[in-house]
């Protein structure tokens, strides 16, 4: 019989965590490798990346809000607004040709509005509970920060719509890049705040849970710094950290899939565990924000030329 010492973590978990960490580092190294400069119009690239970011954010919100509001039994009809609004925003980002430009603007402005209203609805839910703004409510009542992702999706969608009309140059690109950077910084920090709260709720039981509360603020700092003085070194650092954040968002989904397995019944009990385990669609929202941030970085790059 194989001697087995009880340990806090299974060996498989340790091995997979190590593997994932190595993957993260390697991925970060790969995306940050030096490449010969490519001559491409930066503006169109920015538009594409911002739109991809908007799509990821909207997709993440669609999946997450559908799951969570389904879990809440859609007991309030307004809970349908989140999946509908984010769904429309997703369509506008993935298939812009399906809507007129005006419609896309309206859909994304709607997502911004729905996100802001969502904060208020969630706040009302929190304040109605005993303990009001207590840790208990912050952990388990309607999450105060979550609707922010929809606001971000809408903003990114609006920015993408704006960028597709023409490629800003010079001072205009600088202004657009700075506004985009500001949105990226706000998005990264807001998302980090929510992750910090929820990972704290999970007692950071896996050390990898610290990654999404450390890396994105670093990226936010670098982006802010690059927006202030968009020189080559600063932009390069911002891009590296944004790419790393984007990779981390995808890796996060894999970690959350592992988290599903650690609940009673694991994946065999997916119908319950997808709802109670760490949310699979949540981490890619980091990827969405980071992609939009890369778009902003391209605009800053364009302004530098």
């Amino acid at each position: 019989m194989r001697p087995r010492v009880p340990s806090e973590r299974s060996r498989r978990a340790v091995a997979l965590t190590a593997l994932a960490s190595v993957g993260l580092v390697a991925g970060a190294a790969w995306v940050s490798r030096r490449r010969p400069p490519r001559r491409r119009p930066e503006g169109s690239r920015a538009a594409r990346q911002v739109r991809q970011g908007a799509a990821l954010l909207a997709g993440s919100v669609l999946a997450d809000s559908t799951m969570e509001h389904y879990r809440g039994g859609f007991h309030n009809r307004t809970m349908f607004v989140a999946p509908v609004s984010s769904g429309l925003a997703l369509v506008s980002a993935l298939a812009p040709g399906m809507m007129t430009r005006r419609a896309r603007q309206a859909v994304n402005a709607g997502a911004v509005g729905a996100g802001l209203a969502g904060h208020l609805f969630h706040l009302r839910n929190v304040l109605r509970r005993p303990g009001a703004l207590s840790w208990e409510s912050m952990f388990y009542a309607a999450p105060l920060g979550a609707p922010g992702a929809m606001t971000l999706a809408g903003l990114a969608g609006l920015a993408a719509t704006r960028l597709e009309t023409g490629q800003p140059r010079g001072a205009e690109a600088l202004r657009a890049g700075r506004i985009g950077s500001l949105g990226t910084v706000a998005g990264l920090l807001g998302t980090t705040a929510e992750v910090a709260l929820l990972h704290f709720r999970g007692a950071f039981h896996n050390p990898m849970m610290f990654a999404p509360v450390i890396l994105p603020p670093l990226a936010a700092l670098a982006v802010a710094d690059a927006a202030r003085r968009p020189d080559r070194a600063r932009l390069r650092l911002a891009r590296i950290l944004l790419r790393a954040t984007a990779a981390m968002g995808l890796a996060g989904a894999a970690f959350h899939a592992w988290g599903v397995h650690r609940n009673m019944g694991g994946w065999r009990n997916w119908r319950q565990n997808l709802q109670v385990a760490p949310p699979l669609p949540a981490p890619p929202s980091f990827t969405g924000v980071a992609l939009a941030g890369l778009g902003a970085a391209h605009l800053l790059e364009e302004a530098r030329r």
Partner: protein
Amino acid sequence: MTRGIPDVRATEGRAPDVFSRDGWVPMRSHRDGEDVDFAIVGTGAGGGVMAAKLAEAGFSVVAFDAGPFFRPLADFASEEREQDKLYWTDERISDGRDPIELGSNNSGRAVGGSTVHFQMVALRFRPEWFLARSALGYGRDWPVDWREMWRAYDEVEDALKIAGPVRYPWGPRRGRYPYRPHEVNASGLVLARGAEALGVGWAPCPIATLSAPRGRAPPCVYRGFCKIGCSTNAKQSILNTYIPRALAAGAEVRDLAMVARIETDASGRATGLHYHRGGEWRFQQTRNVVVAGYSIETPRLLLNSAGPAHRHGLANAEGLVGRELMVHVNDAVWGTMEDEIRWYKGPPSMAVTEHWNYEDRKDFHGGYAIMSQGPLPTDFATSMVGNLGAFGMDLRRRMAGYNHMAGLKIVGEVMPDPENRVTLSDETDALGLPVPRITFGYGENDRAIGRHARGFMSEMLRAAGATDLFETTGTAHLMGGCPMGFSPQDSVVDADGRAWSCDNLWICDGSVMPTGGGVNPSLTIMANSARIGHRIRALAARGELARAA
């Protein structure tokens, strides 16, 4: 395992792997004739912790338990009567002015003891309670500094990964609970609303069930069967925390091994244990004995272990063994809510107010904690039959409202009284051992606590919107019987848990508690046992302990 007589499992070098349905872990095994360092009687909150602490300190340890070695994933059913197998239901005589109902909420018969079915409430003693006599004017002082106990609480709370509130509203600042609080269920929110309406504090109850994964144990799925044995391992009982640790550190656990008598030599020192296992009587030699059989079986074992130097029972020179037995007042108030509550969902007690433990402007000694409730149907029906005499159509009508019921229940402090005690009767059980007699009666202060609490809980429930209120009374837990104290004249054991009149006999369970406090005792028993474990280690390092060659 099927119904009926369970099999001996921990034997031949292996013990059940509690995280599996049918697996095993290796176990170091000792021969009966081998002189082990420590033989521990009982593997619950006291003995289980001690087995791990001593084995991890490098001692050779054999821990005995009268009950079976369960694997929760395979052996526990979601059925109340089936799970009666977790209780100690041997014959006992209960008498006195207020005979205690013995069984479910004050006993356990399994490896892991009663923690296998405890309510998981993990509250600390109020610091002043360790000086109840000198600081608060009632009961007895503990021979232990509260800060030492609080360090031990830190240790066991981490070992059980207690899920507790981020800030605990009562008592001195404490470190953060290892895991975050669970989502309070609707039943707990009734307590919260009542508390807020009356202007007293409340908090998510710190409980011993996981709010995040831990090793091979998944987080709690809120099935609500905690009190009859958790079948997912989310509950952190001694069975799935300290016992695996003890086994890994080299302790041997013997399940279904009933210890009947401690053998002593002419000098009065313990030499070994007579125990019954696998249908025969056996004898284990040992250098030291630790008894952790809880407040009835510990005194019973000592009283049944008279020897040449211990005429009236082991460590009973002053006639103190079995005395000062305490319970907790477990009175409750129940009511009907307009909303559906479905109180069976989640752990039974998810919200707590310790207001009356920390508020001293009151007309009785001691205190009580109020907790929200979630009794399973049979449990609740039984309590209504017993307390209200509800039966037939009346009982049916009341049970039809089960999903709308809410309730509050206290754990109220009972004063130590030498006349409340465990003795041996003339009757014998199936093994030929004397059946214990438990004599108990409430004092005036104990009744005052019950009255005060029922009045206060009624106010709370009404303020939370409950109607059709009714009260039930009862007791929970056991404490005392072999109190620790300051001298051989006032106690059975010293602050190290060492018997005054037998220097290789130790007690580390709830029976050594000099006072009961107004909180569930399991965490205090574990902390005290961990503390005693540290003391034994220190004594051994100083060469003040008998050790096997």
